[in-house]
């Protein structure tokens, strides 16, 4: 078994316009930056993205937005992306905002075969619009649906060729849940090791969830606040 693909471009070669794509990361931390670059080189259009954020102007998913690749987005916080704000206010991008924990659980449920579940977040707010509200033990809950995608692009620290993944610090975030919730999961990592070299006790994403593994040739990993300051438009 060898899931290793030799380049990010080869790893995304069969992706098509209009697909639903999950992308891991929180802010610019733990994002699949090399797979994003490959998607942009491929020039896909009309993608429906699911990711907690939308990068920033000039990096991460912000680059996909600038390349006009995104038709709709589901996320919880997009405050660092002015282009996105402009497009949404102008009605040119379909944005669905979901409470962060609900988003994470929808993805987890999607990967775990759970079509729907109830959470208290969003009761009495716009998030509750057109959703079933049900009371359990005297408290109101919203029904939320499991979420799946055609493709998940995740970022881990290390992988072996079976697709077992370990993460580094807070770069874990949405990646393990997304790895479970797509028909095709592509993991980009900083280092590929031989099976047996990862401690089985420490593997967070077992290889069963991962279809392709690719080593990112280069990592910029900008710190978000400083990147925004240094690239601020006057």
């Amino acid at each position, binding site marked *: 078994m060898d899931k290793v693909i030799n380049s990010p471009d080869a790893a995304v070669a069969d992706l098509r316009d209009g697909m639903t794509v999950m992308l891991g990361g929180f802010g610019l931390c733990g994002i699949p930056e090399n797979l994003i670059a490959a998607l942009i080189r491929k020039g896909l259009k009309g993608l429906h993205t699911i990711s907690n954020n939308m990068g920033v102007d000039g990096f991460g998913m912000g680059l996909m937005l600038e390349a006009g690749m995104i038709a709709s987005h589901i996320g919880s916080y997009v405050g*660092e992306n002015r282009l996105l704000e402009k497009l*949404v206010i102008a009605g040119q991008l379909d944005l669905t905002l979901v409470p962060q924990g609900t988003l994470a659980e929808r*993805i987890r449920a999607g990967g775990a075969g759970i079509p729907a579940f109830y*959470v208290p977040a969003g009761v009495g707010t716009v998030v509750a619009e057109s959703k079933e509200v049900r009371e359990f033990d005297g408290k109101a809950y919203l029904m939320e649906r499991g979420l799946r995608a055609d493709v998940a692009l995740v970022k881990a620290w290390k992988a072996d060729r079976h697709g077992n993944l370990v993460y580094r610090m807070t770069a874990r975030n*949405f*990646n*393990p849940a997304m790895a479970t919730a797509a028909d095709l999961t592509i993991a980009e990592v900083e280092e590929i090791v031989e099976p047996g070299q990862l401690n089985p006790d420490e593997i967070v994403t077992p290889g069963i969830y991962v279809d392709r593994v690719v080593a990112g040739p280069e990592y910029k990993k900008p710190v978000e606040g400083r990147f925004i300051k240094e690239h601020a438009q006057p």
Partner: protein
Amino acid sequence: MNGKELIARRIARELKDGFYVNLGIGLPTTVAAFVPPGIEVVLQSENGLLGIGPPPAQDEEDPDLINAGKQPVTLLPGSSFFSSDQSFAMIRGGHMNMSILGAMQVSCRGDLANWTIPGKMVKGMGGAMDLVASAPHVVVATEHNTKDGGFKIVEACSLPLTGKGVVHDIVTELGWFHVSAAGLVMTEIAEGVTKEAVAQRTGCPVHFAAGLRPMLPF
């Protein structure tokens, strides 16, 4: 001491040894600097960290180690990492002792608005809706009025809600306000602040507790 520091210092005194606490972005984050000596409080960052340490020196920043405000942080002995779904499972499961958040508006019934201004601002709620819906103790840390002197504490929020009837206490530079079934009750008042000033600067009726105490920063 400015008003924001007074708020942060006063809230920090509510923290008890062994508490697990989530601090929102902005003013709530500053509470961390005033945790009383001699107790251990574990700060949670909803992007997947328990045990947030102080900010690193610039040359020791690690882009893989950030807080929910996306600022580089450090670890402490006993820190742990976890995924976003697990992070919110611990929040939703009621395992946090306290959640401290900022506000754009907060009502005397405990409704909170802190995530959007329709037609003006597209940011998103992040984890705020999850936190307020599930934390056993939700404390709002906010300046008493808007920058132009308008009401932040109101009869009913005009901005879209983050949660309905979710806030337990509101702490401003004027004092401590408890959200009760009978409305807003002021239990502590800051030095030099009069009841008249409180009534004038608040957009809803304020009841003053029989045992109204001075709000001290330490």
